[in-house]
Each structure stands twice: as C-alpha cells, then as structure tokens.
C-alpha cells in the first residue's frame, strides 16, 4: 500500500429516537467505503439503523490537561441539581 488510508471515526444510531454514539474507528480510502466498512465491522448484529463516519483528523477534542479549567466550575454549582433543594415529605408533585 503506497499510502495509508485515512482514519474514520464511526457513530451508530442504534434505534430511531436515540442519538448516534461513537462505536470505534476504521481505515477507508473515502467516505463511501468508510460507510460500507462500518456496516461490516460495526453492525453485523442489527446494532444500528444509521451510520455516521467522520474523518478522525476533522474532530476537535478538548485536551485532558484542560479538564480542570473546563469542568471544575460545574462542581461548585450543586444548586443546578434538583436534589439541592430538600422538599417537605407532605408536599407532592415537586
């Protein structure tokens, strides 16, 4: 092989109404072959009703080093969760 096929990330919608979910990756020379290969590699047992393929190089990801900066601010905002507000037993439907 003179040049290595690009890497594609594969996302499968397992059933209508659910979001596409990342299932893995594969190599393919173009988008059409990537979908064909994804069908064979990731949906041999009715795992999906729809396939997305995205070139891995086109995905922009957050860096593990930025984890604190990105996600820590949410830690201190517990009032965003309903359990932050205790409700009396006798009050219903809240």
């Amino acid at each position, binding site marked *: *092989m003179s*040049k*290595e096929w690009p890497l594609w990330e594969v996302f499968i919608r397992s059933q209508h109404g659910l979001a596409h979910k990342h299932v*893995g990756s594969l190599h393919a020379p173009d988008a059409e072959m990537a979908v064909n290969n994804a069908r064979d590699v990731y949906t041999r047992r009715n795992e999906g009703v729809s396939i997305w393929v995205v070139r891995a190089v086109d995905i922009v*990801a957050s860096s593990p080093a930025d984890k604190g900066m990105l996600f820590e601010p949410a830690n201190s905002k517990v009032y965003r969760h309903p359990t932050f507000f205790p409700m009396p037993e006798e009050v219903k439907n809240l």
Partner: protein
Amino acid sequence: MYTTEFEKQKKLVSTEDPEKLAAFEARVAADEFIEPKDWMPEAYRRTLTRQISQHAHSEIVGMLPEGNWISRAPSLRRKAILLAKVQDEAGHGLYLYSAAETLGTSRQEMIEALHSGKAKYSTIFNYPTLTWADIGAVGWLVDGAAIMNQVPLQRTSYGPYARAMVRVCKEESFHQRQGYEIMMVMCAGTADQKRMAQDALNRWWWPSLMMFGPSDAESVNSAQSAQWRIKLFSNDELRQRMVDQTVPQAEFLGLTVPDPDLKFNTDTGHYEFGAIDWSEFTNVLKGNGPCNKERLKTRVKAWDDGAWFREALVAYADKKAARAAA
C-alpha cells in the same frame, strides 16, 4: 493468552516523572480508565501496544485454520455459521488494531511487523485443522479459552482496549456454542464420527491449555502488568478455571480428556491436571509448530494479492476528490 510472554523485556529503568507516574498509578488503582491522550508511562504504552497488536494478529491469523473448512463444511447451515464466525474474527482483529493505533503505532507498521515475522500471534493457530471435528474443538476449546481471558479484560485499564473487549465478548459466546454444538452432533453420530470428535479433543486439549501462557513462576511481565491492570488474573488462575469448566463439558459429550493425571479434588473443588509440556509451546513459539510457515505465507499472500484492489480504491478516491475540487 493471545499474547506470548516469553519475550525478554528490557530492564525497566524508569525515567518517568515520579509525580506523573504516581498520579497515573493512583488513577489505575482507583479503577479509572486511561484514555489515548492521557499521560501514561512509556513502558505502559509499549506493553499495551505489544499486547493489543498481538491480540489483533491472533484474530487475523486465527481466521486461517477455520477458513480452511468453509468450502468443505458438511451442510449449508454449517457453512453459513462458519462464514459468520470467521467474519467476526476479522471484525475482532479490526477493533483491536484500532485500539492499538490509539497508542501511536500505525496500522501499516503493525501489519508489517506481523508479515515480517517480527510480531507474534497466539501459538494455537499454528496447529492444523485436520477434520471437521477440529472446527468443533476449536470453537469449544480455543474460543472457550479466549473468552476466559477476554471477559476480565473488559475491565482493563486502557479504555480503547476495554471497549474493544466488550464488543468482542458479546460476539464470542456464539463462537463457543457453535463449536460445542458441532461436538454434540458428532458425539451423537456414528462410531466414526465420535472417534473423530475424540481425536480432535486429544489434539486440541493441551495446546488450548497452553494458550494461557507460561506458568506464573515463569511469566516475566506479570507483576507490572497486574499493577497496571493490563492483566487481571494470572495465567495459572485462568488455566485452572478453564480446566474446571471444560472437564464436565467433555464428560457430557462422553469424551475422555487426554490427561491420565486428571482428577477432581473434593477438598479444593478443583480439578488437578498433569504437567504441561512447555518445550512444545516454546518450540511452536519459535516458529517450529506444524503450521507456522504456512500460516504466515498464506497471510502475506492474501495481503499481496489484494494490493491491486486497495490501490484501485485509492485511485478512485483520488479521482473523485480531484473532480470535486475542479
């Protein structure tokens, strides 16, 4: 298991940042998963690259002994099942290559390492499949041993490897059952068929037990791999489980396990079994098994014969891209 642990590992002189190393080991100890972009010690990356790529190579080479019987399966039903199983093995190889690539080694480098003989694959696939009963024995014993090894690996510390194992395990139990079903049918058949089943068990039993790798006392990488959650149970623990689980299955078939020393210990609740001939394992590992040369030759030929097709796909993709750009 699907990897061979007799390779010498360079003495570990850790040049890692002790602070980073401690943080990494704390995460692993807390049962967290390590992801591709996370910091990891070089030895962890190297060990996993070797283990996952060997596992992938084993899946790919593992297609050959069974592929040998696709055109000669005894019925259309058996043929369709075997075809599906072999296709699964290809899929498992692909999941694993993808997982290994996330550690920074390209697919092409891994394939070249296999084809040049530099990379290893499981010794089990260097044995021949002589009769149809071998296809039964392979599914029952070889896939059975693989499951025993792979189920714990679903919790291994490297995320992409663990996720690949989840997919593999979901698919693998069909493989073992179809093999056992072949054995059941043959054992309920004519005297000749039952004799074939016994012969297959005789030839596959010991190589299957060797799949778990050398005894714990001889296993070079175990302590570090256990600490890093690359290895969750020792070779001997898994081998014992395999024997305990498989002997009653053989009894159900009315077959005799080819081990005169095999006996159930009522105190421990485990089977005791005879000594394994490790010289055979070492010999097959060194390339002198019955099929080492043929397997590699067939694999390289398939790759070379497919070159024109892979090149055509690239040419077509380039042409389409050029037209779209024009």
